């Protein structure tokens, strides 16, 4: 599903990733762990096609990311994101936030996804009218709406209490069980209970 070959990355003259190579199979729940400054954010940005690596190659679903002509469409159709902060758009309702991310033929599934995540009643509410845990569940719904092949989650429970964290991990685990590859970057060691693969980073290298 994801093949990383000899990826290195520099910010100016400073090298932050050193010749990383690994593979993530379909349906894996990958835990990307490491201290602050270990290179997690950079690796996640590269894996999610938001950042081009200085060296090396990234293959997603057998396709070299460098050779994808419409990266925007690729990202919208094949990748879902869950960020530390929910990053919902405040002036759009829950339904509209999800519709913004949805492909045309997936818009009909919005209410179904909201129902599966137990937040159907929030559909017409605005982000500032719901709790932090509910917002993050909406963010997960937004990531799932296009039935992506991969979900990238960056500290998805960083701003949640343990109860809501468990709910969010459960939702991501369910997605992985249905065949979606889930990549989570976090400090939270609780994820180890859900992960099927763990990559530990230190100073830009895999331990």
């Amino acid at each position, binding site marked *: 599903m994801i093949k990383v070959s000899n990826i290195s990355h520099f910010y100016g003259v400073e090298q932050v990733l050193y010749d990383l190579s690994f593979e993530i199979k379909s349906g894996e729940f990958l835990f990307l762990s490491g201290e602050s400054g270990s290179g997690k954010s950079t690796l996640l940005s590269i894996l999610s096609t938001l950042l081009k690596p200085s060296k090396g190659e990234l293959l997603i679903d057998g396709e070299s990311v460098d050779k994808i002509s419409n990266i925007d469409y690729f*990202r919208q159709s094949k990748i879902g994101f869950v960020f530390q902060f929910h990053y919902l758009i405040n002036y759009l309702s829950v339904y509209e936030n999800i519709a913004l991310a949805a492909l045309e033929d997936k818009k009909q599934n919005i209410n179904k996804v909201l129902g599966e995540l137990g937040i159907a009643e929030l559909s017409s509410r605005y982000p500032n009218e719901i709790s932090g845990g509910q917002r993050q569940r909406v963010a997960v719904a937004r990531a799932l709406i296009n039935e992506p092949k991969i979900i990238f989650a960056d*500290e998805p429970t960083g701003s949640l209490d343990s109860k809501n964290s468990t709910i969010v991990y459960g939702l991501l685990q369910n997605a992985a069980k249905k065949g979606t590859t889930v990549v989570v970057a976090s400090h939270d060691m609780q994820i180890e209970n859900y992960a099927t693969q763990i990559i530990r980073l230190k100073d830009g290298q895999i331990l």
Partner: protein
Amino acid sequence: MISLKALTKNRFKSLLIFSSITIAVMAIFLISSVSHGIIGMYSKMIKTDGDIIITQKGISDTFFSNVDILLMDKIEKIEHVSSSYAMIVGASPIGHIPIAGIYGTTANHFSHYKLSSGGYPKKNEVILGTNIAKQFSTSDINIGNREFKISGTYSSEIGFEEGGVVMNIEDAGKLFNRSASFILVSCDSPSEIDEIVKKISALDSEIEVKTTQNFVKEYNQFKIIENSSFVISFLAFAMGLMGIASVMSMIVNSRKEEFGIMRALGKSRLFIIKNLFFETLVMSVSAYLFALVLSLGILALLPHIEMLQGYVNGTLSLQISLYVLFSTILMALFGSLIPAWIASKTDPILLINQGCA
């Protein structure tokens, strides 16, 4: 849909853009309307009462032109000339009013001024336009250190004529030391006009003879008014554009996170640019309509402002309205171009970096 919601969410900044566009559009509307109004009134005054105009050669402004009134006798003998009249246009202090228009004309043109009271002026008499008459309750009036008896009042379809006085051309000649500013000639056969122009030109080497249509097209004063109007309109356009650009830059900066989300969700740069263009366009068209209503109100008030004595009138034609609409849309598009471009380049990585994973 997203654009409309974004506008209501950013109410204060949207209002700033709306206001700057409204002011710019109103300025363009008013300056264009007033300049067209002035040109329209003067053109109408010349075009409705004659087919050919005779002015002094080499003098670009009718105010300074001096044509021999005796030419009228020779002109009226030319075949297909039905009538002619001469006129002196000038400006002078009238009573306590520092400056007002004075129209000296031959008696055969008095009927152009519709009498509201009294009779047409004889020697040393004047009739007052409706607007200027409101400022005098005496039976005599001082014009250029000479006393004239007020013989009546008149109204005219041409706004600025109502702010002036009419007298016979001999009296005006003494005031302004000239024979006539111009002579207007009417013909009974439109197809003969060019031939008549040639014949009149041959009468005197010191005159310039044109059809009134050509005169209006080529009149330097109109060109000056039009060019000034264009320059002021352009400045208003530039101010509006800069207003949009600066407020849009503020908006884009405060909504960076939102554009980062859109980019991360796979929305294209074009999607963001189109949305921002649409937001500006909605504000611009609303501001245009608001400015149109305000301008119509102001233009309707202008003729009733006593201080202006009817000299400033505006004509808001469909052509001006469309020209201003086009300018408004251009203003919106150019004003939001750079901010929208910057917004579309928002790097979604900022969302991950803020999380500091």
